[in-house]
């Protein structure tokens, strides 16, 4: 069953019908293996090469610099583990932005735990924008990799990639950016931005799930993760996900053509969401930077209520959204992104993320704005907290209950 209104485009996006149609051909008619020498295979190889050229063109790269992968997560893993292992002779220090997606943080932690890496996590101010000086200060003579996401998945903040990559280049350090939320939504040019490694994921820009790509600057050596039949010029073995690759390239081509439209359309709708929420609901704050932000992202924190309940109520009203509350995560920890910009756990529990997409409409926004105040009010009526019990609500020191202890579960993102 589908939600009537889908406001969770940072989680995933629907495949465009024209993309799905084109992909279908590669399941049914052009099903050959691109590695085969005969026509059935070679004709498909040509199409994969064309797709590679399209993707390269979309980010200002050369086709040889594009490696297709099974997901954005795989692209991130390949970039981080691959760069670390290839450069280990020069040093073992990685600088990782504290608000990265788990697809970046977890490989860093893995390298710390298993392969002797030292990782410095750098944090931004409360808007979520990283000060490039923090990167400069973290550099040591052992630093071999800096990884900073282009746009954040929770609060939509866009980072000063050009400034950071310049610092990396001045120190001859490899620079990776997880651009999964950015590609297809904002203009990305790898040369202009000085990027060495860039990850993307098709399903974030109306392509299929299960396919991503890593841009690898010419001359950059990476240790291969997946060995086998030497597909992708030996950098990622495994028979090509042809339909997926075709889908990714076609979806990106369309997304890039729509960037100006989306910037205008989504910013306007987003601003309507923000104004509507802040004007009509008391005790709510808008999270993140107001300007350096993805056009379709709005993120709020509602006092005295919990985000999962908010998401469930909106879902019952047919509206799909998400929250960074502990209860809505598998880890039972509030979003490390929200804690990482200095929010308290209670503020993070009350968070709601709305991410709009190309087909979002003003009518949908208005319906959301009509439903939300009632839902918030209902949950507040049910809450043991209110402005009069502010102190108790904000008390982070005392554990009110002997039976309810979660040692080491919170603030782990900062430790």
């Amino acid at each position, binding site marked *: 069953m589908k939600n009537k209104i889908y406001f969770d485009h940072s989680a995933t996006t629907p495949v465009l019908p024209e993309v799905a149609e084109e992909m279908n051909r590669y399941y049914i008619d052009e099903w050959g293996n691109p590695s085969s020498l005969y026509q059935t295979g070679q004709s498909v190889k040509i199409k994969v090469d064309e797709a590679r050229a399209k993707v390269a063109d979309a980010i200002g790269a050369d086709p040889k610099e594009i490696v297709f992968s099974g997901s954005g997560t795989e692209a991130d893993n390949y970039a981080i583990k691959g760069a670390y292992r290839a450069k280990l002779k020069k040093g073992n220090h990685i600088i990782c932005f504290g608000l990265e997606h788990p697809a970046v943080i977890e490989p860093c932690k893995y390298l710390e735990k*298993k392969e002797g890496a030292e990782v410095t996590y750098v944090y931004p101010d409360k808007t979520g924008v990283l000060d490039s000086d923090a990167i400069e200060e973290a550099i040591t003579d052992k630093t071999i990799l800096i990884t900073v996401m282009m746009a954040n998945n929770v609060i939509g903040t866009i980072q000063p990639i050009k400034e950071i990559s310049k610092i990396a280049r001045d120190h001859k350090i490899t620079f990776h950016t997880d651009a999964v939320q950015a590609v297809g939504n904002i203009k990305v040019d790898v040369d202009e931005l000085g990027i060495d490694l860039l990850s993307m994921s098709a399903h974030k820009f109306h392509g299929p799930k299960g396919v991503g790509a890593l841009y690898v600057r010419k001359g950059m050596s990476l240790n291969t993760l997946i060995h086998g039949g030497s597909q992708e010029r030996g950098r990622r073995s495994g028979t090509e996900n042809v339909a997926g690759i075709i889908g990714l390239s076609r979806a990106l081509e369309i997304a890039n053509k729509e960037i100006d439209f989306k910037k205008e359309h989504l910013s306007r709708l987003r601003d309507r969401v923000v104004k509507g929420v802040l004007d009509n609901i008391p005790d709510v704050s808008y999270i993140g930077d107001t300007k350096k932000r993805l056009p379709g992202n709005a993120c709020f924190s509602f006092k*005295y*209520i*919990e985000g*999962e*309940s908010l998401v*469930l*109520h909106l879902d*019952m009203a047919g509206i799909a959204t998400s929250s960074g*509350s*502990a*209860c*809505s995560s*598998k880890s*039972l920890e*509030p979003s490390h992104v929200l804690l990482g910009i200095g929010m*308290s*756990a*209670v503020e993070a*529990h009350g968070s709601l993320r709305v991410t709009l997409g190309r087909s979002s409409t003003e009518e949908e926004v208005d319906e959301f704005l009509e439903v939300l105040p009632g839902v918030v009010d209902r949950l507040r*009526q*049910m*809450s*043991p*907290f209110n402005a009069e019990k502010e102190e*108790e*609500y*904000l*008390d*982070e020191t005392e*554990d*009110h*209950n*002997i*039976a*309810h*202890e*979660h040692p080491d*579960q*919170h603030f782990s993102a900062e430790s």
Partner: protein
Amino acid sequence: MYSEKVMDHFSNPRNVGEIEDADGVGQVGNPVCGDVMKLTIKVEKDQILEAKFKTFGCGAAVATSSIITEIVKGKSIDEALEISNAAIAEALDGLPPQKMHCSNLAADALHLAVDDYLVKNGMEPRANKPSHEEEDHEEEQID
């Protein structure tokens, strides 16, 4: 993720509120952890006549609070002390595993409310230890 019963209690919670001249009050949880329940009970001749709740928390927290106010109605103090968090989860046709820890606190709140009633009436508290205990969180080792 949630059973129909959980969603029923979440979307139509029973007995929301606070009993004004409550005979017993029990509050458990911590807003930092994301779940806080406050349960108030009306007791007459060692029998619970009414229970109301206020909860800050997720779907499971709301549903467990709601169902316990129904279950406990008409129960004796002895019977109320027998109710466990596990029994509440079972009455809701189960909770997702990750919710068994944090959000399944309703019986603890009830036991505290009963103790509060007992102490207020010059008796010894009897719940002593809430039934909700941290089990060792066995995490799968992934290399």
